[in-house]
Each structure stands twice: as structure tokens, then as C-alpha cells.
């Protein structure tokens, strides 16, 4: 039974790690209300331990790849299998690690919710699908888990489905994800047509089919199969579309702010750390398929998204929305990094972002939880997610404050944080890349620098408004009632804060090349310009500190008058660059009109036709009825009448009159005589 020997067969370990959270999904929905926390926590912890074991086995060792026959269509055999390489095990550890922390946190956060058994179940489903996504070895399997991840995201966003906004947001997320799935599926189909296989290693591995395929005479050739060369570009765009939807890039980013209707712990897990990273993960996995045109588009979309989201985050007032736009912005950074070829920087940033974004969300959740508690206890109705109503919580909630502080520093990329390593390396690479290009591409790195400064502004605005200054809602005396969140939530924040520092990733706080993570993925194609390595961080961080100082002056010391909310730029930013309104106008309204039209069409034409046919049938039946009654019955009745007539005729012979009888007799006799005489 060698296949079951766990120490030998790592794929099985990976499979087990992925399947364990599924048990929560399978068993918990039917459990009693309020139960299931322990099962969920134990399964995900076990999953994390297994992932950690695999990480130490596989990191920088030979990748493992195992397959089984899955199904046969005609002559074509499809396989299902597990691929374990650096990227896989890193993602496994990341996903399961953050899931464990979120599980512990949610235990306390969602404590009094009556539907908590459903929560654990859905969370289990999500973890299973995400882990399955990262260990899959064929595009088809990735697609299946991709869909499952989208589905569990839908379930979790709409967790409090009785709230209209939540169910709408869930629907929006799912539908927009679906658009991306269309792209992904088209990409799969193109790849399959060209290479007749969906296996990742075969296509994208070392010396795989895609690197063996050549473009010659306008045709994309691979073995005996050929296609016009545009299809390679189209495939690239198709896969990128999937990533755009999943990772909330422009133009399919509108679902992520609305997804904040879900519980905060869900937002931290899914919409900050893991699921939205799935898009970036996909691009990283199938990186060889993208040709230069697609990569350039990727760069621009990533950059634009980052800039746009940062500008929108400047004016938002809901604590979670600011963080949502921040996520979109950072994802834009990652996508842009992939576009310029900074593969390892992108993955590095994905990892560090997962930790500090998760910490940001959980700290915000902590604040929300305590304010909600306060609001209920004092029957003081206010929107406890609005940062304009918060303030002065620094002294009252130290864990949340220091956690958020560290995470914000990591987000901005201040020195001695993990974010410094990842983000600045991306920017350095961006400048190096721009140096090799010309024209409009040279403004791209400066755009990213501007975005970083905007990031500093908005995140510290959040920090200052929530923790410093005075609250407009809660007066000083009542403020003392607010304490820090329960210990389970707080020590999760502590653990995550540890991961925001540079120590975890590199022993050198300044250079990212020293990072073990960065060294796991060397895919360098960009010419290094060493002067950038010290110049850029200097420029960036000095700019960031200036901005932070300014925002301190504005928000804490109140030293600047607000230009007012009627300012055009303010409104533009506040309404998210009016994307929702544009989409509503372009797509929703016309769809509604179409559906109304088809409804009317169905009602008048189709139903009308059916009704007319029914009337026609009724009329025909009337005719047939007439025919039956008049002719058929008439015939039968006529026969009856005829016999009646004949009877009545012969009846008249019986007159009862003697002389007539006699006469009749004689007539007959006479006729006999005459006839016999004649004949």
C-alpha cells in the first residue's frame, strides 16, 4: 500500500489538507444552531499543520506531480491531479494560516449570531475550494475550484441575506465573477484546441508546449496543430479577464466595495487575503501564456486600477469601504507587477499584503464589534461603521490601535515593515522597466509613486479619525465604557502584527533580494539599475512621511478647512468615479428593457398564439359538434323517423271497419286472379 504511505506520498497530504475543511461544509449545516466552531477550527488547524509540513518538504525542492484518470470523452482522456511546487505550497500555507487565524477570531466575533453553524459550513467550503484551487494541476480542475470559490464568496457575502443590501451585493459579486469565468473558460478552450491537453506542467512547465510553440508566418504552431497567431493574444486576454473579475480590477471592480456587506471576518479572509489573490495566483500559474501585448495591457489596467481605487478611498467614510478600495488598489499593484515581468515581486507583495490587509480588517472588525456592543448596551443608535462618528479610541483599545498602526505602516511601505520590502521592490522594478520603454510608459512608475502617496494619505486618515481626535457621537464620559475586544480577537491581531514586520520575510530589512520568498521565484527579465535600489525608497518614504504629517495636521489638529462636499473632485471620488451609475445605465437598464420587451412579447405573441390556437380548436370542435349533431345524429334519427312513418302508414290499414277489411281482402284476391290470368 505504498500509495497510502503519507511520508512518501506528498500529494496525498496535500489532498488531505484540502479536503479537511470540506468536512465542516458537509456536516455542519445540519448541526444544531450555534454549534460547529470546534469542528471547523480543528479541521482547519490540521489542514494548516499539513500545509506547513508540505511547505518545508517542497520549498525549493523538486516539484511533485501526481495524476489520476478522471473521465473519457470519445478518445480523449482527462486527468485530475495535484501539482506541488513553490507557488503551491506558499499559497497553501498562506491560505490555511490566515484561515486558522480568522477562525479563531470569528469564534468570538460571531459569537451571538444564531446562524453561526451556517457560517462555519460556508467557511469550510471556502477553505476547501481555495486549497483545491492552489493544488490543482490542470486548467479544468482550477476552473472548477475557481467557480467554487466564487460560489462560497457569494454565500458568505450574503450571509445575512435577510438584509436586502447583503443579498444584492452577493448577487453582484457572483454575476461579475461570472463574466470573468467566461473569459477563463474561453481561454481554456483555446488552449485545449491548440495543445490538446489541459495539464499545467505539460503546457506551462519547463520546456512545455507553450514555450515550444512558435509563431511563424502569422500562424501559431504547436506540433501538428496551428491557428492564426491572434489566438494566442486572445487566449491571454481571456485568462486575464478571469483574473480581472476575481481580483477586482478595472472595469470589473465594482463588486468588492459592496461585498463589505458580509461579516468583517469574512471580508478579511476572502476579500483581502485569499480569494481576491486567486486572480493574481492564476496569472502567476499560467504566466507563459501571456504575450507582450497582453502584458502591456495588464500593466496599464493594474496601474489604472491602483490609482483609481486610491483616489476613491480618499473620500469614503465607511471604515470597511476604505479598506476595500485599498485592497483593489494593492491588487492593482500586484497585477501591474506581473505585467512588467516582476513575477517574484508580485508574489511577494501578495503574501505580505495578505497579512497586513487581514490585520487591517480584523482591527477594524474589532472596533466595529466594540462600538456595536456599546451601541446596544446604551441604546444609542448610530452607524458604528462610519469613521466620522468615531474618535479617541486610542487609549481605550490598544490592541486594535497598535495592530492597525503596524498594518497601516506596512501598507504604506514604511521601513522595517514587510510591506517596505515588497512594495518598494515593485516600484523599483517598475522604474527599471520603464527605462527600457519609451513614450507614455515612462509616466507609469510616477503614477505608481503618486498612488503610494495617496495610499499613505487615506490609510492614515482612517487611523487618525478612528483612534485620535474626539468622537462626535460618543461623549467623553461614555467613552470609558468601551474596552478592547475579547482576548481571542486581540491575540489574533497580535500574531498578525508580528507577520507585518520584516523579520518573517527577510533578515535584511532593506533589500528584498535577500528575502527567501523572493528567491523562491526567480523570473527576472528586467535589466537592473542599481541606483534605483536606494534612491526610490528614499523618495517614496520621505514623501509618505510628509503626507502622514499633513494628514495628522488635518485630521487630528483640524488645521485645514474642508473645501466642502460640493467640490466636483470630491463628489467624483466619493461616488467611486460613478462606475456603478455608468454600469447601471449601460447594462442594467437595457437589460431590464429587454426583459420587459420579451415579457410583453411572450404575453401578447406567444400567449396570444396559444390562445388563438385554443380558440380555433374550440371553433373547430363546435363545427364538429354541429356536424355530429346534425348529420350523424340526423342520419340515425332519420332512420328512426322513417320506420316511424312506415309503421304509421301501415297502421292506417287497421281501421276497425269491417267493410274495408272485406274490400281489402277482395282486392287482393282479385289481383291474384287477374295476375294469374295475365301471366
Amino acid at each position, binding site marked *: 500500500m505504498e500509495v497510502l504511505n503519507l511520508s512518501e506520498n506528498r500529494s496525498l497530504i496535500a489532498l488531505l489538507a484540502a479536503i479537511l475543511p470540506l468536512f465542516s461544509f458537509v456536516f455542519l449545516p445540519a448541526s444544531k444552531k450555534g454549534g460547529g466552531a470546534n469542528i471547523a477550527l480543528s479541521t482547519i488547524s490540521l489542514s494548516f499543520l499539513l500545509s506547513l509540513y508540505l511547505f518545508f518538504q517542497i520549498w525549493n525542492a523538486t516539484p511533485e506531480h501526481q495524476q489520476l484518470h478522471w473521465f473519457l470523452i470519445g478518445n480523449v482522456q482527462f486527468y485530475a491531479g495535484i501539482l506541488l511546487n513553490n507557488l503551491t505550497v506558499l499559497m497553501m500555507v498562506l491560505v490555511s494560516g490566515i484561515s486558522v487565524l480568522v477562525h479563531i477570531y470569528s469564534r468570538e466575533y460571531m459569537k451571538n449570531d444564531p446562524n453561526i453553524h451556517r457560517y462555519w459550513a460556508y467557511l469550510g467550503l471556502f477553505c476547501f475550494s481555495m486549497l483545491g484551487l492552489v493544488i490543482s494541476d490542470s486548467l479544468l480542475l482550477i476552473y472548477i475550484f475557481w467557480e467554487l470559490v466564487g460560489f462560497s464568496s457569494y454565500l458568505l457575502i450574503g450571509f445575512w441575506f435577510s438584509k436586502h443590501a447583503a443579498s444584492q451585493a452577493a448577487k453582484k459579486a457572483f454575476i461579475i465573477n461570472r463574466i470573468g469565468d467566461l473569459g477563463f473558460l474561453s481561454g481554456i478552450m483555446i488552449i485545449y484546441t491548440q495543445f490538446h491537453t489541459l495539464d499545467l506542467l505539460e503546457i506551462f512547465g519547463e520546456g512545455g508546449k507553450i514555450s515550444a510553440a512558435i509563431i511563424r508566418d502569422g500562424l501559431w504552431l504547436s506540433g501538428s496543430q496551428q491557428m492564426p497567431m491572434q489566438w494566442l493574444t486572445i487566449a491571454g486576454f481571456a485568462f486575464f479577464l478571469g483574473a480581472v473579475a476575481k481580483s477586482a480590477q478595472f472595469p470589473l471592480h465594482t463588486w468588492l466595495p459592496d461585498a463589505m456587506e458580509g461579516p468583517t471576518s469574512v471580508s478579511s479572509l476572502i476579500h483581502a487575503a485569499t480569494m481576491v489573490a486567486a486572480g493574481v495566483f492564476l496569472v502567476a500559474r499560467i504566466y507563459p501564456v501571456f504575450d507582450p501585448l497582453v502584458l502591456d495591457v495588464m500593466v496599464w489596467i493594474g496601474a489604472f486600477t491602483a490609482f483609481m481605487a486610491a483616489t476613491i478611498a480618499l473620500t469614503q467614510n465607511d471604515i470597511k469601504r476604505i479598506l476595500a478600495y485599498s485592497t483593489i488598489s494593492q491588487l492593482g499593484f500586484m497585477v501591474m507587477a506581473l505585467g512588467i515581468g516582476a513575477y517574484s515581486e508580485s508574489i511577494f507583495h501578495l503574501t505580505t499584503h495578505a497579512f497586513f490587509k487581514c490585520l487591517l480588517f480584523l482591527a477594524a472588525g474589532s472596533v466595529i464589534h466594540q462600538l456595536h456592543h456599546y451601541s446596544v448596551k446604551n441604546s444609542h443608535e448610530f452607524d458604528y461603521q462610519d469613521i466620522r462618528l468615531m474618535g479617541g479610541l486610542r487609549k481605550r483599545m490598544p490592541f486594535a490601535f497598535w495592530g492597525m498602526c503596524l498594518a497601516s505602516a506596512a501598507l504604506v511601505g514604511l521601513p522595517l515593515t514587510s510591506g517596505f520590502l515588497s512594495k518598494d521592490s515593485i516600484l523599483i522594478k517598475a522604474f527599471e522597466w520603464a527605462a527600457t520603454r519609451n513614450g507614455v510608459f515612462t509616466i507609469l512608475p510616477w503614477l505608481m509613486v503618486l498612488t503610494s502617496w495617496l495610499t499613505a494619505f487615506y490609510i492614515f486618515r482612517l487611523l487618525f479619525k478612528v483612534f485620535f481626535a474626539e468622537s462626535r457621537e460618543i461623549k467623553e464620559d461614555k467613552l470609558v465604557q468601551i474596552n478592547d475586544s475579547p482576548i481571542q480577537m486581540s491575540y489574533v491581531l497580535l500574531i498578525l502584527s508580528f507577520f507585518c514586520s520584516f523579520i518573517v520575510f527577510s533578515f535584511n530589512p532593506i533589500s528584498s533580494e535577500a528575502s527567501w520568498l523572493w528567491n523562491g521565484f526567480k523570473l527576472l527579465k528586467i535589466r537592473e539599475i542599481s541606483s534605483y535600489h536606494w534612491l526610490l525608497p528614499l523618495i517614496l518614504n520621505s514623501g509618505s512621511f510628509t503626507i502622514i504629517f499633513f494628514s495628522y495636521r488635518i485630521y487630528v489638529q483640524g488645521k485645514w478647512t474642508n473645501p466642502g462636499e460640493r467640490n466636483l473632485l470630491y463628489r467624483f471620488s466619493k461616488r467611486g468615479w460613478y462606475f456603478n451609475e455608468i454600469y447601471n445605465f449601460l447594462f442594467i437598464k437595457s437589460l431590464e428593457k429587454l426583459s420587459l420587451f420579451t415579457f410583453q412579447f411572450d404575453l401578447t405573441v406567444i400567449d396570444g398564439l396559444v390562445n388563438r390556437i385554443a380558440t380555433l380548436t374550440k371553433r373547430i370542435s363546435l363545427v364538429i359538434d354541429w356536424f355530429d349533431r346534425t348529420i350523424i345524429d340526423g342520419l340515425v334519427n332519420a332512420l328512426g323517423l322513417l320506420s316511424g312513418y312506415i309503421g304509421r302508414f301501415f297502421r292506417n290499414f287497421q281501421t*276497425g*271497419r269491417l*267493410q274495408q277489411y272485406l274490400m281489402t281482402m277482395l282486392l287482393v284476391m282479385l289481383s291474384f286472379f287477374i295476375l294469374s290470368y295475365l301471366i
Partner: protein
Amino acid sequence: MIPLSHFMLISAGLFCIGLYAVLTKRNAIQVLIGIEFMINAAVLNFVAFGRYDKISGGGQMFALFAIVLAAAGVAVALAIILNVYKYFKSIDPTKTNTLKD
């Protein structure tokens, strides 16, 4: 001698007259008279043929019998006519039609 056919012709004529009377008269007694005519015609026939039969004398014998029977018949018929009148209040044969359908 009178040829036989003469007698027979007379008898035929008398018979038909009697037949006419039976068929068309509206009075039961006149019907009875018609019947009598018919019987008399028959008797005449008997007698005419009886002239040729000396050995057995059947003709004349049966003529006698026929006459007697006719007389009896008339008597009974008259009694019947009386009763019919009592019941139907009329001796018109066309009025006695309760046996009609």
C-alpha cells in the same frame, strides 16, 4: 232446356250485386240483405248443377240445407245487430270501429 251457363251467369250477377251491397252499405241490415243475396246466388248455382245429378241428388239437397242455414244465420245476425245497436247506438258498420289501431 236452359243451358247451365245461363244459370251460372245469373248467379254470378246476383252474387256480385250482393257483394256490392256488403261492401258499400251503411246499414247493417242492408249488409245482411247483401249476404242473403250471395247465399241465394250460391243456392241457385247448387240447383243449377243439381239438375245433372239424379243419383246422389247432392245439388238439391245442399241447396235445401243452405237455405235452412241461411235462415238460421239471419236470425242470429239480427240478434247480433240488436246487441250491436245497444252497445254502439248505431248500426252503421263504419261506426263500430273500436278494434282500430
